[in-house]
């Protein structure tokens, strides 16, 4: 009796020890040697993605696996890009658990370029580097490149911006509804704000509708139309001195202060509900926003919306969003992963991503492809989306990006929300935004 109790206790202790150590077991990092790389050897590649990157839905993995029967592709998708990036950071810190291919969002690429360039394969050192570089808009290639010319990721899509507007609401407010006429309404942001005042003063527009969804719509799109956005040329945050920030703040805070916006927080519940309720007549539209509007409003929204160029687009276009694919250098299948990434981001595949899943190409060759240029969107009254966004993409300037762009942008858009809600005066809001930005960047 005593004996059996004793052995059971021993077992218990041993089991506990095993459980504890099992959790800490690491995988050994077998670094792939380029010389050993056999392109026909069977290999399973994992691709870490976030949100709706649609590489799977557009059928690109299947196509690649058909071309290369030895390759099996597995995607690990995380719904929210912020959550995805947090786990990527902890994995980078531990240098373990990384996928063979890791997607990177524009909001995070600068941090990786600056602090973790060594962890990823340098595409600029490849034999076909010149050809690769030629595949992308120079600013897109530049966003993934370090100061010493390493390029750690290749671009997938971009978010050239336009302005979406509700035809029905414009008509009720007595504004023109034709695409070309609307484009003439707002050559500049000043003109756009005048139209907004006109809309808000109209007695015939629906009583509870505003001209634009949020001050953030104005701020986040016009901030990239200056020479600098949130950073100086070296990528150091300088929100207080940037011409882009100052201008964007002037436009957006005026709109907020005068009550021209519905003051919704973008991507919040009320914002989502507001699409169907016709609470606003315009919204800044990066190419990917079309899909978002479509999914929020469903069939009832078909034909209600149309697309015009962004105010001030003649001088400078603006980009919001976009992603990259990078290959961790220590991965056991880095060579095979490199081939996959080069194929996925090649112009031909970017054309497919646009025609099948509406992700706008980051490659000028793809953007100029007849299939892209000629594309129209039935849901948006047959708007020539390929042409509109293609023109926008060609006009995007290279504004330096930095590791804290997402946080600084949030600091400004929340301060604008406060101004619009009457919680702060314009100057006070500016100070609050700078303080919050300082807290985010300064440490």
């Amino acid at each position: 009796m005593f004996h059996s109790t004793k052995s059971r206790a021993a077992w218990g202790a041993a089991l506990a020890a095993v459980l504890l150590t099992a959790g800490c077991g690491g995988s050994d990092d077998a670094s792939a040697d380029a010389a050993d790389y056999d392109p026909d050897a069977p290999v399973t590649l994992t691709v870490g993605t976030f949100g709706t990157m649609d590489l799977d839905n557009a059928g690109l993995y299947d196509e690649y696996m058909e071309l290369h029967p030895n390759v099996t592709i597995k995607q690990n998708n995380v719904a929210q890009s912020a959550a995805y990036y947090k786990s990527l950071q902890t994995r980078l810190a531990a240098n373990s658990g990384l996928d063979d291919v890791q997607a990177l969002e524009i909001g995070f690429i600068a941090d990786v370029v600056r602090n973790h360039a060594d962890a990823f394969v340098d595409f600029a050192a490849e034999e076909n580097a010149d050809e690769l570089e030629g595949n992308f808009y120079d600013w897109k290639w530049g966003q993934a490149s370090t100061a010493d010319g390493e390029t750690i990721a290749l671009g997938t899509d971009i978010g050239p911006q336009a302005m979406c507007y509700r035809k029905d609401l414009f008509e009720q407010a007595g504004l023109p509804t034709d695409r070309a006429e609307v484009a003439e309404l707002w050559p500049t942001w000043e003109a756009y704000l005048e139209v907004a005042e006109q809309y808000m003063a109209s007695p015939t527009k629906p009583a509870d509708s505003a001209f634009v969804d949020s001050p953030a719509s104005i701020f986040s799109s016009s901030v990239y139309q200056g020479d600098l956005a949130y950073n100086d040329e070296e990528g150091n945050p300088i929100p207080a001195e940037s011409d882009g920030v100052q201008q964007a703040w002037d436009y957006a805070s005026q709109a907020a202060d005068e009550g021209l916006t519905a003051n919704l927080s973008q991507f919040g519940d009320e914002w989502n509900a507001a699409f169907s309720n016709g609470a606003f007549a315009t919204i800044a539209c990066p190419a990917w926003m079309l899909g978002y509007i479509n999914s929020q409003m469903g069939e009832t929204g078909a034909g209600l919306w149309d697309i015009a160029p962004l105010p001030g687009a003649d001088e400078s276009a603006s980009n919001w969003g976009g992603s990259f694919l990078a290959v961790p250098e220590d991965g056991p299948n880095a060579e095979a992963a490199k081939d996959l990434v080069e194929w996925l981001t090649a112009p031909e595949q970017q054309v497919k991503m646009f025609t099948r899943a509406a992700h706008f190409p980051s490659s000028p060759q793809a953007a100029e492809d007849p299939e892209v240029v000629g594309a129209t969107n039935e849901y948006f009254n047959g708007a020539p989306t390929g042409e509109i966004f293609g023109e926008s993409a060609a006009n995007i300037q290279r504004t330096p990006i930095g590791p804290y762009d997402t946080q600084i942008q949030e600091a400004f858009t929340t301060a604008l929300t406060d101004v619009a809600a009457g919680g702060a005066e314009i100057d006070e809001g500016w100070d609050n935004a700078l303080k919050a930005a300082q807290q985010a960047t300064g440490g």
Partner: protein
Amino acid sequence: MTIASGTVREAAIAAPPPASAATSPARPRKRRQLTRNRWGYAYVAPFFLVFAAFSLYPFMYTAWVSLHETSLSNINGGTWVGLENYRNLLQSEFFWNATRNTFTIGILATVPQLCMALGLAHLLNYKLRGRTFFRTVMLMPYATSIAAATLVFSQLFGRDYGLINTMLEAVGLQAIDWEAGTVSSQVAIAVIVTWRWTGYNALIYLAAMQSIPGELYEAAEIDGASKWKQFLHVTIPSLRPTILFTIVVSTIGAVQLFGEPLLFAGNGTTSGGASGQYQTLGLLMYQQGWSNFHIGQAATTAWAMFMIILVIVGVNAVIGRLRNRADR
């Protein structure tokens, strides 16, 4: 004489039975006792190993990180800055704003919650038809996930399409922008917390009430005390240790309040409202560490929260002890 007889009895108990004394000398017997104890340690070891791995180690590690300036992706590196993070924290208006919010939301949530729980427990202590049903229903909010509850409540408190504003407008009142205002947003969050925890505390009170001897009530009734007087002068004093316990637990919960304000924003931002009007310490820590990636600062805030909790628990314990001493 009594003392002597007592010692004799103890000696008799302590003395080994003659048979065993004859077969084994004192030393091996002692060793066997130790062996038996050693297996006792083995039994409790798993707990302490897990505790060390998942509580003690992170705890010390957080302290170490808080003395560095470092980012999430470089958690083991960073530069040693000593107490710099603590100084920055104490000078940061974001910290004081979050501290203030944590306390006001804490009071808004805890006080009505515990009062209501006490009242509910008192009612459920009567003989009621369907008593078990009510007791079960009361615990249901506690079994609901914070995320689900907060998402539902933040829709109820929505500015344009929320049910509460629709009702306010239906009775001719002005709609409230719940999320934008300081007081209104804090009240809304306090409502979520109260909804979730009232039933739980009520059940704790109820359990304690059932252990109050019935004679006390009988005696009070004979003395002519009304039900209300009985509640005030019999129930509450008997519940004092339980009340102290629930206050301590609720206060710790209030200092750590995080999920509700995070999800109340509705779009995943961590600033706790446009002017930080409902940013709590927990949310500030999350913002520092996981939105801004300054993990050293976040660790500092975590330690500050721990200190605040220690102070509050200490004050509670002192008050409890003083009350006890005063009663004696």
